């Protein structure tokens, strides 16, 4: 079942036409991997889904991205509301220079907690602590940090920091989580942990991951999309893309003859 439907998405940065007529739909509770050589528009693409591109001066987005039945690029939509529902994890771990607890508690603190009736209210101290513990457990970090929640996030290793960033994103209780090359700054062991976590998260969340690492895409994703110079070249079931790509460009890339 599709949760995100992208229709005729075009992105311009000034003169540069970064994404060209991208149309695709992403399935709920699946991991969709976005692959392609540098500069192909992968990051631009994923940043459209939570409207992060709005921050870049001179960026123009055309087309529709329908999430849960409503177009997030409609005129009356506040991008801040979109970002409350869609989590994002970045290339380099970017925890706030605050304590581990403060990092995870930040979003619930500013947004309040969503109640059963869909309204949010200010979180009590107890509820905040619960949310932080829940998020850290979900990000498989709790056991490692439960005794030092007050310590600075920068006392953690790179892999732990990235899982902290995942926990921080989970604390907003999103439906969709976007990962923009989450392992590119991590060693293989930390990478393996994140990959296990991704597969585990899929039960409850829809995951979109941009990756440079084709093995990673093959290992974790259900579907894979291949981008080349702003165009969606091929999109389908991961095994099929890697074993029997239909387009020559895709084959060239995954066999390592290009990119």
């Amino acid at each position, binding site marked *: 079942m599709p949760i995100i439907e992208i229709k005729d998405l075009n992105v311009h940065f000034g003169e540069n036409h970064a994404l060209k007529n991208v149309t695709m739909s992403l399935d709920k509770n699946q991991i969709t991997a976005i692959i392609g050589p540098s500069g192909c528009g992968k990051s631009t693409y994923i940043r459209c889904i939570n409207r992060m591109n709005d921050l870049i001066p001179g960026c123009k987005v055309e087309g529709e991205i329908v999430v849960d039945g409503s177009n997030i690029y409609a005129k009356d939509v506040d991008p801040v509301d979109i970002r409350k529902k869609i989590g*994002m994890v*970045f290339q380099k771990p970017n925890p706030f*220079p605050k304590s581990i607890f403060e990092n995870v508690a930040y979003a619930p603190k500013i947004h309040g907690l969503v109640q059963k009736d869909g309204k949010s209210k200010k979180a009590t101290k107890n509820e905040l602590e619960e949310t932080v513990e829940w998020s850290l457990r979900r990000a498989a970090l709790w056991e490692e940090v439960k005794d030092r929640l007050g310590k600075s996030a920068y006392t953690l290793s790179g892999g732990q920091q990235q899982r902290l960033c995942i926990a921080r994103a989970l604390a907003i209780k999103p439906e969709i989580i976007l990962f923009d090359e989450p392992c590119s700054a991590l060693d293989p062991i930390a990478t393996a942990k994140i990959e296990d976590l991704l597969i585990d998260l899929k039960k409850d969340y829809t995951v979109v991951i941009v990756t440079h690492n084709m093995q990673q895409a093959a290992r974790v994703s259900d579907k894979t999309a291949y981008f080349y110079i702003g165009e969606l070249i091929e999109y389908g079931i991961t095994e099929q893309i890697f074993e029997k790509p239909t387009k020559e460009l895709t084959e060239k890339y995954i066999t390592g003859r290009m990119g």
Partner: protein
Amino acid sequence: MNRRNREAMFFNLFRVCALIVVLALVVILGYVLINGIGKWSIDFFTQDPRPNVHGALVEGGILGPLVGTIYLMLLVMVIAIPVGVLGSVFLQEYFGGTRIGRIWWMVVNNLAGVPSIVWGLLGVALLVYYLNFGLSLIAAAVTLSLLVLPLIMVATKEAVEAVPSSLREASIALGATKWQTVRHHILPYSTSGILTGIILSISRAGGETAPILLTGVAVNASIPGALGDQFQALPYYIYLMTQTTDRTQAYAMAYGASLVLIALIVGLNLVAIIMRNRYREKYRW
């Protein structure tokens, strides 16, 4: 000359330059200290300047000028810090990277180089007469605030720019508004840099003579009780002392007052360093 000798030569050249800088500082500070410290006494700090038999204000102390300068510094802080810091953050975070933003910063950078006497002229023409502030503490404080605004803004800009954009993105991606991002992240993380700019600016405001000369400082004014009153100030007092015929006594007073001014600025800097280190310790990435 081989490479090693050449290196030694340049190293020695640098050494001499560094020595000149340090020596100049030590000589100036030492000279002021030696000549000024003898004047420091309870009376020096608790009495107003009094005229001697010839009418020169070389007797008494520096209470009036000292209090006037402290008032000026406080007022400049109250006016220039919020305007400068918030203005700079606004320009940077909301207009950063756009054409308007760049033009705006060009203006600010140029304003930072405008000579202080020009600000004084603006102050007297615009504030004192056109806006009817009169020669007053507030006219001088506003003039000095305008003078230091570009300094505060540039320092704030640099501090804000030093915050990695990845942290900005992290906050925005969590659904924080721009203002929440500024308030919860950008400002706290850049506080140490902003503080440096503020202290520099306040020190500068405390030491300026030309602008206050035109906008409200007065010989032997009493300690101001209202913003519309005239006032005395240390730099102007020092200037007056050097214009007096009775040199021996007047210069001694001038050195004493200079030492107070320097101590004030060093004190401010110490406070800034302590605060800066605390913030740096707190927010490190």
